[in-house]
């Protein structure tokens, strides 16, 4: 644990980070920036796993395993989403959510 820092301060930080990401996800209209906001959300939840592991159950490693899995899923999700965005740009010449009204063609 970090000396002189309580669990409440770190959880406040992650909550703030989560809702900053949520704000970005709700206001942005560009698909790439929305994806970046999702990265912020995922990061906030990963820090929560790690912090609760470290402060409440320091002899176990379950939080670390879950964080590794979340990071792996986030990487896979980003790669897929970006390939979809690039394909969408070929079809529509735009990556705005307003322009994408149909699922295919």
């Amino acid at each position, binding site marked *: 644990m970090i*000396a002189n820092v309580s669990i409440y301060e770190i959880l406040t930080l992650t909550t703030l980070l989560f809702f900053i990401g949520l*704000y970005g996800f709700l206001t942005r*209209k560009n698909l790439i920036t929305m994806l970046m906001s999702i990265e*912020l959300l995922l990061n906030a939840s990963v820090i929560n796993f790690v912090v609760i592991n470290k402060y*409440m159950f320091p002899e176990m*490693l379950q939080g670390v395993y879950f964080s590794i899995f979340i990071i792996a899923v986030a990487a896979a999700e980003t790669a897929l989403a970006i390939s979809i965005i690039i394909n969408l740009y070929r079809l529509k010449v735009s990556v705005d959510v307003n322009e994408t009204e149909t699922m295919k063609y």
Partner: protein
Amino acid sequence: MEHIFFYIFALIIIVFALASVMSHKILRAVVYLLFSLLGVAALYFMMEYNFLGAVQMAVYAGGIIILFIFSVLLVHHIEGELEEPRFSRKVMMGLASLVGFGGVLYVILTHNFVTVEVPRTSTEVSDIGKGLLSYGDGGFILPFEVISILLLAAMIGAIIISKGKKNV
């Protein structure tokens, strides 16, 4: 001493996350996100999870940010400006986020977390590896293998989707 560093890193994370969410230039937003993620990696290092910090830096700074920069350069002009959302929309969504933040913060601050004081111990990478590959109680071999298949499927899917149709 360490709590001063914690506050510095917390400030870096929050300021750059806000800048990334509000910036009008899309490439700058990506770079701000990079600094925010590096601040998170610094937090992991401070909590003695060195492997997790290294993974965070390698996967996010080395992988995901590069992917974002490439995709931005492919689909935008390099000085591309983002469309400004309507003011009413910003206020509404900001209020919604603030209300959510207040609610979650209230729950966290009123809940009594039972923390344990332990002497500082660094987590060995070999412990993480043994736990990930263990068959016994609390072992994570099945999710580990499932994740490897997921990564393979995502890789093949990304290649096939982004290749698009063959134009003869």
